[in-house]
């Protein structure tokens, strides 16, 4: 019964996405462009050397190109508009409609995001991967690494959803959330390893990156994908870190939500 509700919510959001096909072509083009830039930057940085030393041993150019491709693939899912959905709903009063739905506000948003992501797999990820496989040689992981990678990506995406949702809730207090979003995007760009892998960081930056959950969304899964992080102890450690952040964020949200709903005053409607 409940499950059917969630399924409908997800499918609905999938159908809405299907209506904006031209936007998606542009988005896809944008992603490809960014990937191209990254590949060219790494080619230029490697110049004539075949491999460079890093915090995780020697790195070859083709490993770096694979890194960029996988990072782009993750970013297809990690760029969501949860923050703006929440703030739009709060500022327009639409949130009242969500509050009377027989499911939690967070589940509504989660299903909607899931629906968009199903769509993205079909129309963004698959084309992107096909182009990348043709144009750039991409390393494939061993089966074990690949499975661990998938698990970490799922964990990372849940983490990403919870982070954006928590920041979206700030809209109850401060409506110009896009500025907070800029800060978040900046931190992710710098400290998640989405562009520069943490293994090329200086020691201070590496330390700094441990204070934020962002490395668990991009860098750590990709390092597993490339076989730079192996061994049960290390992998379990990563999953444990993800879990700890997820639990922490859930607690934070319960606290924020309790205060937010009490503040909410919807005008008219």
């Amino acid at each position, binding site marked *: 019964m409940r499950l059917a509700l969630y399924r409908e919510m997800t499918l609905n959001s999938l159908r809405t996405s299907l209506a904006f096909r031209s936007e998606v072509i542009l988005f896809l083009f944008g992603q490809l462009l960014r990937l191209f830039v990254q590949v060219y*930057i790494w080619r230029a940085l490697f110049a004539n050397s075949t491999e460079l030393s890093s915090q995780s041993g020697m790195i070859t150019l083709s490993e770096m190109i694979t890194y960029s491709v996988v990072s782009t693939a993750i970013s297809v899912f990690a760029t969501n508009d949860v923050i703006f959905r929440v703030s739009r709903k709060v500022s327009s009063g639409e949130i009242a409609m969500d509050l009377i739905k027989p499911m939690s506000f967070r589940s509504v948003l989660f299903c909607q995001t899931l629906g968009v992501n199903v769509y993205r797999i079909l129309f963004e990820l698959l084309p992107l991967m096909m182009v990348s496989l043709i144009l750039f040689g991409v390393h494939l992981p061993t089966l074990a690494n690949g499975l661990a990678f998938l698990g970490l990506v799922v964990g990372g995406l849940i983490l990403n959803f919870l982070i954006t949702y928590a920041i979206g809730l700030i809209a109850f207090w401060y409506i*110009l959330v896009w500025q907070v979003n800029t800060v978040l995007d900046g931190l992710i760009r710098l400290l998640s390893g989405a562009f520069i892998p943490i293994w090329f960081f200086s020691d201070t930056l590496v330390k700094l990156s441990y204070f934020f959950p962002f490395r668990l969304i991009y860098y750590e899964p990709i390092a597993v994908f490339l076989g730079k992080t192996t061994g049960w102890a290390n992998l379990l450690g990563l999953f444990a870190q993800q879990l700890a952040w997820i639990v922490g964020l859930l607690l934070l949200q319960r606290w924020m939500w309790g205060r937010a709903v009490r503040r909410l005053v919807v005008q008219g409607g």
Partner: protein
Amino acid sequence: MRFLKLYARFIPIYFKSKTEHGFGFYMDFVGFALNHVVSYFVIWALMSRFQTINGWNMYEVMLMYTLNMLTFGIAAVFFFFQMTDVEEDVHMGTFDSLLVKPINPFVHMIIRAFGHFFLGDIVIAVGMLVFCFHKLGLSLDFGSAIAFIAVLLGGVLVQAAFIVISGSACFWLVRSRSLMNMVLFGIRDLMDYPVSIYGTVLRGVLTFVIPYAFVNFYPAQLILNRNDDALFASWLPYATPAVGLLLFAIGYRVWNAGLNRYQGTGS
């Protein structure tokens, strides 16, 4: 002259309507600017590990980023929100109000809004420009100052032309926001690093077809006196002001063609 007088009337009204939001208004300056601060950190993180990219060092790369940001900021103050407003008007069917006024719609479009958002960018860009000049040991005498201003204006015109052209697409497509974003925040990102890192085809496209290389790469070559990595022809950096004027003229033609095409969306 008449336009300046009108501008002096329009802008205070615009600011009055914006400052009503109080605190949020002042935060506008911070929001965009933060993005750039992060970009400098990214360049720093990357270049402190690798030292050079295609023979350009950290401060030279930062200078290029700054030129891109500065020329875009200046152009965006006068064109960016103005063009997104036009798109919104065309979409809502309220664009006719611009056509019935006794001013050239292009001028009216420019003077009815002001991109205060981008003033923060410009402040940071000027600060970083001074910083990079200092770190690179550059100084301007009278002649080079004139040349610097000329290439900067050329860059501003190129940026303005791209805003006008991509924004004018709304006359054909009704919605042009995603196209604008693609051109102004997607393709323009290609210029964050020296254009010489790309293959010949992309270099050619960025020089002759979508001449974004003239907003920072060629001006930087001129400012830094780099003769060793000239692309295509060694005189190209000097062509920046001419390219800017030409492209802006094309932008104006596209806008006019769009106006002729505009038929309203009903209502």
